[in-house]
Every structure is written in structure tokens, then in C-alpha cells.
């Protein structure tokens, strides 16, 4: 597939909450190998936009398109190609990182040959595979959730603040992971306040509209 082909696009998305316009007219066209960083001040709707992209939330108007088709029509196909990590890491606190990875892996389609322990070791959780997640630090919990990135086969990654609570070394590793993913033709949409150490990141800014209106 030529890199110019638009695979995933947002079509004049708008979202209203409690009669207040959070954002409007968001357009984005992504082709393989792109990273898009969603920026904006606190409360401008970054998390909301990413949750709309994940289909956990529906936009007030506008639509998502996957290969030109509205996602509402090809929902299952879209979900099979989507990896979403939200604001909440989606970890069960009383389960260990390995058990968390196990249930997540079975719920999602992937055919990764990597074992759970290998994955956790390479994300820096060696020795913590079997302890309950509530005993882990915030950064370690984030790593336990990010371990899913190593086994997912989905081309579109949607990450909400993936760098939160992670140390410098971990940030570098995650950036490597993102670059490797786009080098293989994947796509990444992420929100972060940090400056990424990756070139060729496209940025879209969300203005703080709630105050203006």
C-alpha cells in the first residue's frame, strides 16, 4: 500500500457535553507510518477525542472512517485493527501483571508468539510478574498496561497520556516502540504534554472552546 493512501480519517468531528461545545470541526487524515500528537491545555477535550476514536464514546456530529468506510458500518473490522489505552490503564488491581496480560490477550485478537513473561521482562517488570498490581508503583502499573503494545497486532494505536508516571528510560523505550511501530507501517494517535523525541510527529491542537462559548 502506498504511504499516501488515507487509511483512517476523522470527518468534522464535534462533541458537546451538557450543551457546551467541547470541540468542533476536527479533521484528520492518517496514512500508514504516521504519528499524530493531540495537544491542548487541560480540559480541552484530548481524552474525549481519543475516547471517540476508540468508539467508547460517540461524537455529537461527524464520523470516523476506516478505509473510507464509516466506522459505524464496519465496527468489528475497525475494532480488530485498533489498540486503545485509555486514561485508566485497565488493569485489575488484585491480579498480577501476568494475569492481567493473560485476560487481555484472550479478549483481543492477536497471534503473537511472545510469552507473557518475556513481554513483561522486556518492558522492565522482571521479578514483578506475580505480585498483585496494587503493590506496584504508578509507573510500573503503566508499564504493565503498556506491555500490551508488544503483543498487539493492531495497526492503529490510540494512547492517552502513555508517558504519565514513566521514568526517562521508560520514555525512551516507549518512543523506540512507537517508532518501530510506524516504521512497520503502523499509525499512532497519542496525547501527551511532553515533547516527543521523535521527528516527523504531526500535531493537532485542540483550543479551549468551553470557555469561549
Amino acid at each position: 500500500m502506498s504511504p499516501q493512501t488515507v487509511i483512517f480519517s476523522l470527518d468534522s468531528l464535534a462533541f458537546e457535553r451538557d450543551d457546551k461545545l467541547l470541540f468542533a470541526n476536527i479533521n484528520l487524515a492518517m496514512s500508514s507510518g504516521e504519528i499524530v500528537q493531540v495537544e491542548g491545555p487541560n480540559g480541552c477535550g484530548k481524552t474525549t477525542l481519543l475516547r471517540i476514536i476508540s468508539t467508547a464514546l460517540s461524537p455529537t456530529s461527524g464520523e470516523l472512517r476506516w478505509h473510507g468506510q464509516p466506522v459505524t458500518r464496519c465496527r468489528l473490522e475497525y475494532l480488530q485493527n485498533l489498540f486503545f489505552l485509555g486514561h485508566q490503564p485497565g488493569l485489575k488491581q488484585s491480579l498480577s501483571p501476568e494475569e492481567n496480560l493473560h485476560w487481555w490477550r484472550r479478549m483481543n485478537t492477536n497471534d503473537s508468539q511472545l510469552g507473557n513473561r518475556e513481554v513483561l521482562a522486556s518492558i522492565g517488570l522482571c521479578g514483578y510478574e506475580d505480585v498483585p498490581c496494587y503493590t506496584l508503583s504508578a509507573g510500573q502499573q503503566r508499564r504493565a498496561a503498556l506491555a500490551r503494545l508488544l503483543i498487539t497486532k493492531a495497526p492503529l494505536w490510540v494512547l492517552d497520556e502513555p508517558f504519565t508516571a514513566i521514568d526517562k528510560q521508560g520514555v525512551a523505550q516507549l518512543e523506540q516502540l512507537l517508532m518501530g511501530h510506524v516504521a512497520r507501517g503502523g499509525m499512532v494517535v497519542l496525547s501527551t504534554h511532553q515533547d516527543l523525541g521523535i521527528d516527523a510527529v504531526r500535531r493537532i491542537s485542540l483550543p479551549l472552546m468551553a470557555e469561549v462559548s
Partner: protein
Amino acid sequence: MGQGFSAIFYRDLLLAFRHRGEIANPVIFFFIVVTLVPLGLTPEASRLAQIAPGILWVMALLASLLSVEGLFQSDYRDGTLEQLLISPQPLYLMVLAKVLVHWLITGLPLTLLAPLLGMMLSLPKAGYLPLVLSLFMGTAVLSLIGAIGAALTVALRKGGLLLSLIVMPLYMPVLIFGANTVQRAVDGFPVAGPMAIMGALLAVSLLISPFATVGALRVSMHG
């Protein structure tokens, strides 16, 4: 296809096992009330026997209502509900798995304990089998119906009262026919009729309730 079902089923069973203290709560509640009834009303066997079917059924209903509130709450808070909703697996089966686990840790223990509790309330012999059978089906219906209410109120800060208001009217038929099954058996009438209605309630709620729950979860998440 069944992968989502088994993934959630085993995960929730494991979670229930890790929180053994919490899952014992409905059973302990059931036990306490049944112990208190003879003390508060009368220890006289003949009068206890009259009210035993009703008391046992009301307690089973309340125990189920108390525990169903948490069905989706922790999943909602830690973000795993979101992962469930966007998983490419059928949500119907995953919700069914969650409800099944809920029944296994609340309804089933109550059902199995019921004969013992019946004995404490001097339930006549003829009532034991209908009690167990009606609770077996009835508690499953209660879990299925309760799941709809739990899904509707999951995003609310204090949804407990609202949950009771939503779910109570739907619980009524289960209570009426459940208690009636046992009462009829005690009085020496055939119980096939009310038992069949319990079975019908179970079949209908098994088919419809997961759909309603899935819809309610989507509404709650979009709020």
C-alpha cells in the same frame, strides 16, 4: 467466539477468589437475618413454618440486590469496562460471563445453604426441594435482572438507591412466584405451575437481559 466469554469468566472467578471476604458478605447477611427471625418473632416451630418460605425468599432477594451493585463498578473505575466495550469479541457473551460469575458467587451459595436455613426456620419437609429448585432458578433471574440496573447506574456516583428503585419492580414477579412455589409445596399442593413460571422467567431473562445490559452499558459509558 467463546474466547471473550471464557476470558472474562476465568478472570472474574479469579478476582472473586482474591476477594473472598467480600463474596462471603451476602451469605453471612442471609445467615444473620435467618438467625434473628426466630429471636425477634417467635421460636415456636408451627408459626415459623408458616412464614419460612416468605422470609427465605425475601432474604435471597435482598442479598442479591446488595451484591449486584458492584457488578460493573470496579471495571468502570479501573478502565477495564472500556477495554471490554472496544474488544472485538461479542459483548453479549462477556456480559453473560460476568453475570454467571455473579450468580456462582451469590445465588448458588444461597441456594445450597437454603436447606440448612430452612431447617433453622423449621420449614416443613415438603418445602425443601421446591425451595432449592426455585432459588436455583430464581437467584439466576435476580442476577440477570440486577445486571441491567447495575449497568444503568454504573457511571453515577451514588447509584445505589436508584438501582434499587429500577430493579425492585422487576424483582417482584420472581419473589411472588418463588415464595409461592415453596408455600404451595408446604400446603400440599402441586408446584409444577409456579415452577414452570420460574423456568419461563429464567429463559426470558437469559435471552433478553444481556442485550439490555449491553445497551445500558453503552448508554452509561457515553454519558
